[in-house]
């Protein structure tokens, strides 16, 4: 079993709810897709090609000031539970961890270099996916962090760049800046007032897209949405971030308005809903992951509306991460598929909530 305590903050420093708007916006993640000149991209790379790319990137990281102290995990050497653990921390994609295809193993040469809050996925679809994840709504800080790593690595490694098309990526949907910024946002107000459809539709009209909790291809659970830019070419990095930032601020406003409407028109119902959610989490003896997410969404709304007091956003974030199957199994010394896991989850949630005064 891998030891995430090797990482400066367990790899999930963004959980601490220290960033701006932490109650509605959980985290901000930005990634830059980069490839090396002279090495075939993912789909055409042999094991030897991937090995060469990894060696080159590892050398460059060791020679860099910014990534010298990274912890490297070789995905092909980890068992499934460990890979899932990294994925649940949002440190590796489902594809890199080969969790999207069972029982296949990650290909040789796939790795992740972590120096929280930054990291580099190696030999995913692109040779490098530089990423950073911060607490709350913090697009500028996240990009500043990433930009310094990008420019340093760009001086040490030959990135594939075209004067017209920009940074070249395996999939043309990422070409240009290679930048994808996403904001993980909690929108129960818009879901309960049934306004969410209109908002999501509006997003697609202004060049943004939405995904579930774990990014591309994942389902929306617990009213958590990842909003991100759809296009990566034709606009400068700053413009892409400004545009996303402006729209996210608007969505936050809509969410706050929806919460006001709920309180004005259905205060009793909402209060009942959030306390029922709290009650179930506080006393249930068996909880599935999806159920936990949905109940946590209710409690989070209750905290946001000041109906539930004395419960910190940090605790709610911790519950969100630690009740995921691989985290829970690791913490409690069980297997991911253990039939006792729902009972273990309920007991963990009771313990954590019991520690907080309400």
């Amino acid at each position, binding site marked *: 079993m891998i030891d995430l305590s090797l990482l400066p903050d367990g790899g999930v420093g963004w959980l601490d709810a220290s960033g701006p708007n932490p109650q509605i916006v959980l985290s901000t993640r930005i990634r830059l897709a980069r490839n090396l000149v002279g090495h075939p991209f993912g789909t055409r790379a042999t094991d030897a090609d991937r090995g060469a790319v990894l060696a080159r990137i590892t050398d460059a990281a060791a020679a860099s000031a910014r990534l010298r102290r990274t912890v490297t995990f070789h995905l092909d050497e980890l068992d499934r539970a460990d890979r899932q653990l990294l994925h649940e921390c949002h440190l590796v994609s489902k594809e890199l961890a080969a969790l999207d295809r069972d029982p296949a193993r990650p290909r040789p040469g796939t790795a992740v270099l972590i120096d929280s809050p930054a990291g580099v996925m190696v030999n995913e679809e692109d040779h490098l996916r530089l990423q950073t994840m911060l607490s709350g709504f913090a697009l500028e800080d996240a990009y500043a962090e990433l930009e310094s790593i990008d420019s340093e690595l760009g001086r040490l490694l030959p990135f594939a760049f075209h004067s017209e*098309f920009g940074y070249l*990526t395996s999939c043309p949907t990422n070409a240009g800046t290679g930048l994808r910024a996403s904001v993980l946002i909690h929108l129960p107000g818009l879901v309960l007032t049934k306004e969410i459809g209109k908002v999501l539709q509006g997003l697609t009209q*202004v060049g943004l897209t939405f995904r579930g909790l774990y990014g591309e291809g994942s389902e929306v659970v617990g009213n958590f949405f990842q909003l991100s830019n759809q296009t990566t070419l034709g*606009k*400068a990095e700053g413009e892409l971030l400004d545009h996303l930032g402006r729209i996210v601020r608007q969505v936050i406003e809509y969410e706050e308005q929806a919460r006001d409407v709920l309180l004005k028109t259905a205060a009793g119902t909402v209060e009942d809903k959030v306390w029922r959610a709290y009650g179930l989490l506080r006393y249930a003896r068996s909880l599935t992951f999806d159920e936990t997410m949905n109940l946590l969404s209710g409690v989070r709304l209750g905290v946001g509306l000041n109906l539930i007091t004395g419960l910190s956003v940090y605790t709610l974030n911790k519950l969100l991460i630690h009740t995921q199957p691989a985290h829970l199994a690791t913490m409690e010394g069980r297997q991911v598929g253990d039939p006792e896991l729902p009972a273990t989850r309920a007991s963990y949630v009771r313990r954590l909530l019991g520690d907080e005064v309400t």
Partner: protein
Amino acid sequence: MRCDNCKERDAVINLTQVEHDTKVTLHLCEQCAQEKGIETGTAVLKSPLGTFLSAMGKGTALPVPADALRCASCGATLRDFRDSGRLGCAQCYQSFEDHLRDLLRRLHGSSQHVGERYVLPGANGEADSTSRLLDLRDKLRRAVESENFELAAELRDRIRVLE
């Protein structure tokens, strides 16, 4: 109504875009709409990339069959790209340049990168010694793998000097 772009042909498409929170409506003729990368047929933009790619070039006769157009560097054909939606290497962008320019315009609304400009290490003739060293180490690894020991020995000597 005349087309807002060429002011000649009749407008058949109303394009509404939201830019910087302001709604802009353009009336375009079919030709201008296509030039701007707007799908005028029945194809829906939101279809998966695979379907989208197979629709690429529809209506315009391809000069060469997709199988014949091959990237000299990695060997991927245009058909490979259309099937998988992924390019084989950086050189593919040059090999399939015209096709990709068209696709990038459709996907992003533009094919011109306006973000950060990148300069390859050493492109100004003054490669930083660390990047030169990393480059030589990579070449050495490849030389050893391909059992080109003469080159490997030479590279090892150059690395020693730099180190």
